[in-house]
């Protein structure tokens, strides 16, 4: 990041704005411009909703299959098992988000504990 070496205290903030904030905010701005022409009940709206839903599941799968350093201490069966048990808790409680979180978290935390001996 030699471009920013002139002022080292501001450099991290400038880098964040140029290479983090602007590249992601551009999509939100674009959405505002396009959304003015989309009706809440149109097929395009329903299509976009499906795309967003699939993307979200995709992000979850990536987090679980390609884990960060902290999550990688849980073996893949524990990560997958946590999602399965969370789903079971969710449907067993008539769609409670909280129940899903408690059930899934218990699996991850206990299995890492158990793996550590």
């Amino acid at each position, binding site marked *: 990041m030699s471009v920013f070496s002139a002022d080292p205290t501001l450099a991290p903030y400038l880098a964040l704005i140029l290479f983090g904030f602007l590249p992601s905010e551009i999509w939100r701005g674009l959405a505002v411009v396009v959304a003015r022409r989309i009706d809440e009940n149109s097929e395009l709206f329903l299509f976009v909703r499906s795309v967003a839903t*699939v*993307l979200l599941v995709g992000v979850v799968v990536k987090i679980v299959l390609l884990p960060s350093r902290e999550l990688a201490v849980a073996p893949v069966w524990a*990560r997958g098992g946590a999602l399965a048990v969370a789903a079971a808790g969710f449907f067993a409680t008539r769609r409670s988000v909280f129940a899903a*979180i408690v059930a899934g978290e218990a699996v991850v935390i206990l299995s890492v504990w158990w793996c*550590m001996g």
Partner: protein
Amino acid sequence: MSDADAAQAPGFDWSWRWFLEGVRQALTGPAFYVSISLMGVGSLARAAGFPVGAAVLSTILVWAGPGQLLFFGAVIAKTAPPAIALAVSLSSVRLLPMCLSVLPMLREKRTPLPVLFAAAHFIAVTVWAESLRRLPDIERPVRLPFFFGLATTCLTLTSFSTALGYWLMGSLPPPLGAGMMMLSPIYFLATTARSARSGADWLAMLFGAVLAPVMVTFVGGGFDLLALALVGGGGAWFAGYLARRTS
């Protein structure tokens, strides 16, 4: 910030009662889930050598977990700045369909453009999923104050937790660290399932679950999510379209 702007905007109804209702509903769960699950961003920012202020600012400005993780992760890996910008941008393409599926629910004919830009800034996975779930049950004129109450509460609490994660993360025992990182996947899935209203929504989740591992394995290079979105999202929409046609 944006809620104050919104209050002063001409031709725009503001209800503090519904703003507070948004705050209250955020505090029943979503604000805590997103703030705990983004604590990892703070720890990563610290590992990347950024000051705590920049870590918090990344939450306020970027407000998209994967983009923030990518940004600091890429800095740690000494990636060239233009490549960082490209990777962050690719990971944030999903904000476009998310904003597009929420904004038409918030918007009224006379909603000023700056208010919509402010609203769009708050839309990321958490606020998107909670909006899909809660907005349809709310009268249109008070959706915006409710939305801003919900969204600003999530963002504020997460700003604090980013700073907390900056100082805390390295010292957490491994089971708790893993549990923290697993919180957002579970929460994202559960809250999206909670907001599912039609067969097409469930089909979209199923397609995502089946196709995502395939795309991650065979496409890669930052384009896997894009390919997944078009194939899986398109397929789920088309199945729903056919079902609506024949019924």
